[in-house]
């Protein structure tokens, strides 16, 4: 037997085998590139497929701190003297101001006129920001702010303006937090896109709707005996196909959906 011939045959056979295996690998690789894996569909593509549109400006906040505040106790000495306003205080923490002569808002009630009224006539009005106007019940709801961020649905940081059928404000109710301060420690926040993703994955954003507003605020995390602690929270407003609006809230640190119960003391995190 010629050992040299056997060696040559082996080299040729293995060379051919290697070429064959390489071609096999190359074909498989090319085939794999032609398929898209279901799980890799981006959230944007899925939103697009469900015809969910964005009509809100992206928010760039990356870091934010928790914050805290104490419930304000009203004292008549602190309230500004006004010939047109009569003050009543309930449970030391709820202020009711009634106008002896109701103040007109104009022919059309819109955010601009209500904001003007609040800044001009409401005690510490500048520390509140409009949440919604309900034209049917003729009232506007404001939430108190920390560093220009709203404290969502907190019964102790609320302002409600009431007007009559002549669009004249006849009273407002107010609660407030004081000693508001941010914690030293800052937290990395989930992006507003992630908040939308969380809501979408829980089927809370319906097809054919529009995300009309995304803003960062605070919601109550912990209630201590004197102090409340607030966590950064995304508010996502969704406009449905029929024109109605739904507001959702997502804890911006942990990504949990927050439901505000009608019971003022109860906050439900999902």
């Amino acid at each position: 037997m010629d050992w040299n011939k056997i060696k040559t045959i082996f080299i040729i056979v293995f060379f051919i085998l290697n070429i064959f295996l390489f071609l096999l690998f190359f074909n498989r690789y090319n085939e794999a590139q032609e398929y898209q894996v279901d799980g890799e569909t981006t959230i944007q593509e899925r939103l697009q497929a469900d015809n969910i549109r964005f009509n809100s400006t992206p928010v760039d906040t990356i870091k934010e701190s928790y914050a805290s505040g104490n419930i304000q106790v009203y004292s008549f000495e602190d309230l500004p003297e006004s010939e047109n306003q009569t003050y009543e205080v309930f449970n030391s923490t709820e202020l009711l101001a009634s106008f002896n002569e109701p103040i007109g808002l104009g022919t059309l009630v819109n955010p601009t006129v209500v904001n003007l009224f609040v800044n001009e006539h409401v005690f510490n009005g500048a520390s509140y920001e409009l949440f919604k106007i309900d034209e049917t019940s003729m009232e506007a709801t404001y939430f108190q702010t920390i560093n220009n961020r709203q404290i969502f649905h907190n019964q102790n940081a609320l302002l409600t303006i009431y007007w009559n059928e002549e669009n004249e404000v006849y009273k407002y109710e107010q609660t407030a937090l004081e000693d508001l301060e941010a914690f030293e420690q800052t937290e990395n926040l989930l992006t507003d896109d992630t908040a939308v993703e969380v809501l979408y994955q829980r089927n809370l954003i319906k097809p054919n709707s529009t995300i009309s507003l995304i803003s960062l605020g605070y919601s109550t995390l912990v209630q201590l005996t004197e102090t409340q602690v607030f966590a950064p929270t995304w508010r996502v407003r969704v406009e449905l196909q029929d024109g109605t609006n739904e507001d959702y809230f997502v804890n911006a640190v942990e990504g949990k959906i927050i439901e505000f119960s009608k019971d003022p003391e109860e906050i439900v995190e999902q």
Partner: protein
Amino acid sequence: MRFSVLASGSSGNAIYVENEEHAFLVDAGLSGRKIDELLTSIDRNNKKLSGILVTHEHSDHIKGLGIVARKYQVPIYANVKTWKAMDHLVGKIPLDQRFHFDMETVKTFGSLDIQSFAVSHDAADPMFYVFHENGRKLVLITDTGYVSDRMKGYIQGADSYIFESNHDVGMLQMCRYPWSIKRRILSDVGHVSNEDAAVAMSEVVEEKPTRIYLSHLSKDNNMKDLARMSVTQTLKSCGIVTGEFLNLYDTDTNKATKLVTV
């Protein structure tokens, strides 16, 4: 007697205590390099250690134990059950560096008396320490599900406390941890909450200058500001106003507290 909390939290724990003659580490739950770095930050080093006292075998208390002990030939003190539980976790420790420190006993190192006492935690035989010198008392108590009357007897009337204030119960209940973990933390062999810690503090502090270092804070279910507020308000509801004779201090997972004299 002086001390510094080098690091505190579930990512690693180490406390440095010294007097004129001796220096101890209580637990070495960080890497050897990190312990070196933290000791350097308070102008101290591992070379002068008289011993490492171990509280229990959980990794956040013994992570760097074997390395530090072998590198600097430092004696290790722990009770029998803790030795058994951690033997395979710390690597080979030479026999002449292995010492027993039994539960509820006192060991004397010059003018320093170190007393051990049992805590309620899900470890083999967990215990913490009270340091006594010239009538001054330093208490270390973390990793306990509750503070029993027996523990209160040991820790009564100290000048300084390194006291666990692990979590806010509300935050823990709402967090993403699996229920089994939540149940473990809230149990009698878990960790003590801000409020429960404060109630226990109110029962053991005496009306004299007292420092309390809030320790072993949960990374996910507590914050320094929250722990301080919660403990302050609970103490107030128990009739103790912080800032009068009692002051609260923060500890950190990554930064040593200032070396202070007890």
